[in-house]
């Protein structure tokens, strides 16, 4: 009996991989190179081709023919013609258009005169492409002004034509920096293998277009370390952009703790402080702040204030549109994107490819878990009934108010207490959507609460105390969704969540995935009011975790005696 092959190739570009198949691991490695993992809820994992994944594969050295041959070898069904065409079309285009630096400035080189004609015929591209002096005339080369380097790449990527940027980078102002061998408190400073591999993949000189790109690592895998290691290797002034102020503080703390930089070298550029120093950490929010819609973004000047040699985009999937635009203008500067997912809610993956760079390194969530780099986690949805008064409020309320009534179900306080008793002594985060609910819990349980309204310094103090083990339980609002480093947190109790944001659920789980010193498993509880719309919203949110391989179990709260 011949064993069927492990993969089904659908004509819409979806790839279905059977995890139970003996060749699964080998096939998975191959698919990671050419497609993106869409979901892995059970034994069948779903991958997808996109132009960006195929360009990433081409950037990594794959040819379309090799991809097709390898695909045919592991596919159970004959490859659909559309898929063959898709792979050939997109992959073969990679490298057909190159940007290089020449005597007269930047030159765009097309593989054939016909291709150059096509490019010149494009409405938004044609005017950007200048002609060479008559003595050097060529029907495959066009001049591009250096300030148009990003625009031409972005516009062509949007039209399905990737540009291989071989124009190189400028070094930026030199900065003396090294990773310490040990921290001030005597702990060793060690860059893990995969973090070093990620830096090598980014900066290695294997390809001429090396130096910019995106590193995909799950929450808790230490993406900050990739940034630190890249900085130490390039030794140049660096701008680091992050989603929020807490994250700024944590980057600065890590820089000071693990590198030879001092406070004089590191500046914070946020709503509360505007210090531009050789290494500056800023928020996306401050960069996109402006007084009125008519005004330009004054803080985007930060990009050109200094001679940066590297810009790091933390949580690059959250990069706002104005930052994309300015990024187009600084293409001579090396760029490093850090993220847990390439999927953007706004669908602008193509912009990230064109302006930040191709994916240079990825290690999936479950692989890191199996290798012990992140903690194992169990997810439980706890169904909590409404008390009779809340139930009648819920029924009588208009649809728009129901979600909040269900989210703030007072019975959830009992469940939180029971869970805290159960996990007493284990660092625990209680995360909620509604401030009233969190304040009430804080008061009832006498626990500290961190919200967006709390000054950053106070927030940092509380996070530090939590990390130092002085307090076991922290109540946090959605400010803690992203880029907050609480390595010891092992339990997360989500008392309420937004309607169906898949990203939020994943980020909240990510808070507790750092490997624990004692090797214990992390637990994620999501409290959901039984019989309300919250059940369905929770199901939608939880589906993302299921798709990542974290199954949910469902328990029902029936009073103190419930065994969760």
């Amino acid at each position, binding site marked *: 009996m011949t064993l069927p092959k492990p993969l089904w190739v659908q*004509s819409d570009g*979806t790839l*279905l991989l059977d995890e139970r198949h003996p060749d699964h691991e080998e096939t998975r490695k191959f698919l990671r190179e050419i497609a993106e993992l869409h979901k892995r809820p059970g034994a069948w994992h779903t991958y997808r081709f996109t132009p960006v994944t195929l360009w990433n594969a081409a950037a990594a050295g794959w040819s379309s023919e090799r991809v097709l041959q390898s695909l045919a070898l592991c596919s159970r069904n004959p490859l659909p*013609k559309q898929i063959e065409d898709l792979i050939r079309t997109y992959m073969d285009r990679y490298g057909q258009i190159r940007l290089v630096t020449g005597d007269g400035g930047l030159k765009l080189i097309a593989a054939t005169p016909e291709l150059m004609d096509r490019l010149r015929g494009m409405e938004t591209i044609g005017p950007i492409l200048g002609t060479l002096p008559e003595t050097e005339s060529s029907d495959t080369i066009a001049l591009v002004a250096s300030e148009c380097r990003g625009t031409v790449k972005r516009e062509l990527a949007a039209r399905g034509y990737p540009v291989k940027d071989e124009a190189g980078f400028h070094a930026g102002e030199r900065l003396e920096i090294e990773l310490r061998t040990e921290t001030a408190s005597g702990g060793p400073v060690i860059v893990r293998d995969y973090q070093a591999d990620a830096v090598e993949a980014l900066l290695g000189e294997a390809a001429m277009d090396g130096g910019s790109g995106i590193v995909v690592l799950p929450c808790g895998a230490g993406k900050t370390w990739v940034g630190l290691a890249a900085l130490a290797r390039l030794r140049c002034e660096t701008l680091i952009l992050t989603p929020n102020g807490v994250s700024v503080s944590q980057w600065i703390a890590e820089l000071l703790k693990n590198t030879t930089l001092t406070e004089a070298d590191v500046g914070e550029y946020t709503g509360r402080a505007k210090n531009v120093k050789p290494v500056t950490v800023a928020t996306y929010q401050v960069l996109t702040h402006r007084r009125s819609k008519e005004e330009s973004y004054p803080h985007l000047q930060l990009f050109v204030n200094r001679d940066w040699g590297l810009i790091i985009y933390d949580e690059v999937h959250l990069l706002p549109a104005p930052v994309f635009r300015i990024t187009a203008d600084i293409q001579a500067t090396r760029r490093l994107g850090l993220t847990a997912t390439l999927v953007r809610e706004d669908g602008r993956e193509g912009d990230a490819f064109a302006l930040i760079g191709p994916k240079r390194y990825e290690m999936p969530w479950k692989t890191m878990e199996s290798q012990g780099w992140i903690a194992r986690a169990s997810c439980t949805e706890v169904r909590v009934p409404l008390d009779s008064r809340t139930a009648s409020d819920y029924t009588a309320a208009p649809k728009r108010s129901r979600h909040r009534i269900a989210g703030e179900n007072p019975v959830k306080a009992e469940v939180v207490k029971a869970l805290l008793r159960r996990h007493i002594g284990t660092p625990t985060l209680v995360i909620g959507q509604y401030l009233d609910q969190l304040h009430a819990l804080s008061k009832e349980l006498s626990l500290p609460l961190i919200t967006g309204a709390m000054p950053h310094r106070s927030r940092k103090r509380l996070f530090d105390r939590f990390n130092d083990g002085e307090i076991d339980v922290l109540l946090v609002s959605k400010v803690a969704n992203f880029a907050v480093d609480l390595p010891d947190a092992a339990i997360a109790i989500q008392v309420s969540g937004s309607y169906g944001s898949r990203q939020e659920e994943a980020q909240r789980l990510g808070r507790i995935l750092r490997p624990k010193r004692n090797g214990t498993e992390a637990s994620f509880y999501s409290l959901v009011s039984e019989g309300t719309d919250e059940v369905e919203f929770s199901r939608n949110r939880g589906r993302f975790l299921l798709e990542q391989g974290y199954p949910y179990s469902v328990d029902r709260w029936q009073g103190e005696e419930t065994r969760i």
Partner: protein
Amino acid sequence: MNVAQSLLRLPESIRALIETDPVVRERLEDGQYLEDILRCREWAEAWLRSYLDTDQRAVLNNLVERFASKPFEPVNLIKSLGRSSAFAGSEVRVALAKLRRSGIIFAVRKAWGDQLLYLPEDTVTLWQPLLLPLGGEPLAPDEAADVTVTSSALPLPLSMELLSAWQTLRRQPLTWTGKGSLHRPTVAKFTGELRFPADAIRCLNLTYPHADQLAPQAAIALDIGLHLKALMRSDNEIKVAPSGMENWLALSPAEADARLYDILLTRYGKADAGLQLIASAVRALEPGVWFRESRLVIDDGNRNGERFGLEWLGLMEAFGWLERGDCAGEAVYRKRLDNEPKLSQSGEAGAIDAFEELFVQPDGELFVPPDAKLKLRWMLADIADPVTSDAICIYRLSRNACARAYNAGYVLRSVTELLEQASRAPLPEPVADSLADWFAPLGKIKFAEAMLLRTEDATVADAIMRDPDIADMLLEKIGDRDFIVLSESYSVLSAKLRQIGYPPPDRIQVISSPASDKNENHPEETKSDSGWVYAPDAVGVYEADPVWPDAESLFPGLSEIPAAWIMKPRAYHATTRKKMIQRAIEWEALVRLEVDGSARTFVPNGLREDGDRWTVSGRWQSDDCEIGTRLDKSEQAFVNAEQFTDMMIVLPSLDALETD
């Protein structure tokens, strides 16, 4: 019409004649059934061997090539053979009678007496490979390795497209008004599920009612459904026929597609013999093997062979049954359809590819592999939302789908059982939880029809409640003056109420029990339906020809002529010779003439008189006993009365036609 249907209508006397044909008889004696014998390749090969050099073999060859299973009048075949060969009409007529005797062709008679002959539609695939095999070997393995696939898409097989379209009729039957206007939204939904282009089936030349409102794709989907009895017509609507559909759904997609191929070949292909023969030839090819398109021409030089080939390949490609490619600049094709799939009941397919019929993902998605039974797909459409129809079909469980499933009669347990049986595994916990959540509110509230006993006021209500017999029949009190009562107790309760002095008025409306609908028989299902597409030359509408041709009916006036005319050549007077020639022309028979001292065979077809002189026109027939030489048409010739003295009329042997 196929062999079984033809035999069913056949007069017993003619059936008995067929059973005495030596090639048939020996198989009957071995215990085989006549229906099976007349469809079996081994019998066909034996018959060809037995009748190797006979007129009937040559005539069969010609009629298969010219008509395939399309009914024909004998005169048309005679004319056609007369134009292209030296066959005499009498030879053709007798050969046709012998082919009837052998059970190869059958006859019907129109109401006005004309006879139609036909080859049963299920024997085209039997005779075509033997008589008109397809030329062209498959590509050699090294050539096949260089093939580039050029098919631009991989459409779903026809069985899947039809299933999706028929599913829309389950939810909303297709209706039309008295004036013939079809319900447009239903037509749009139905047609929307059929993604093959209309161009692909243009070669079938379909004509059908409401052609202005109905695309050809929809017409053929309706027609196939009605033909298979998976759909039925009832008043002004076409809807799913439960038991017919059940039979169809028992098939695997591979079996269903093989059946559909045969329906296309027999039902629509017979409109054009060339197309039907190409379809038959392709049917016999091995699946998965590449062949050259240029060789898809029936050997006997069919003039339209190339066009038919390309049209049929286009049709198969659109139905997901065929892939086309390019091999060093030459167009090639390979079948994806297996016309002889392994039967699903055998379990063989499962042994080769041990795969669940269904895979349930913890996030509620259902993966259905290509070999999953149609029945499972049909049921999944009731309980889940379709997401993708592709190599793997994907469905998703949802709250709305559960509500739909509940309305279709499913409950949590039956959905769970269906999914667990098909996936051969317990449901993943998140799926079981979701289904439990979604089914929990279903059925908690429902509208019910109940018989209400209304009283004028609470006093009357109290009064009737005090009677213990009546109280037993009151199921539930509603408010202070109404009761729900058992509808079955209506008569007894009425009598009782009359007894106690509260006679109710007579009931006007009888409430039907919804349960009775469920057990409703569908007598319409058993009705035969001619389908949606007009089928030209349908022999089914005519009576089987009960008359067996004897010598007198084949050659009218045979008994009135001197026996010597047909016994041996003799010298006759010119007047007699003229009479003989005239009789031969009437019978389309041959004559043997002694010309210049040698006897030669002539096929007379006209007599020209000039006073006492006359000249006969016709063709000389080769005296070579090889049948093949007579298939070559000879030049028109003229013979004067003076050129010969001895002659006879040559009639084909009628021995085989005689009965015991």
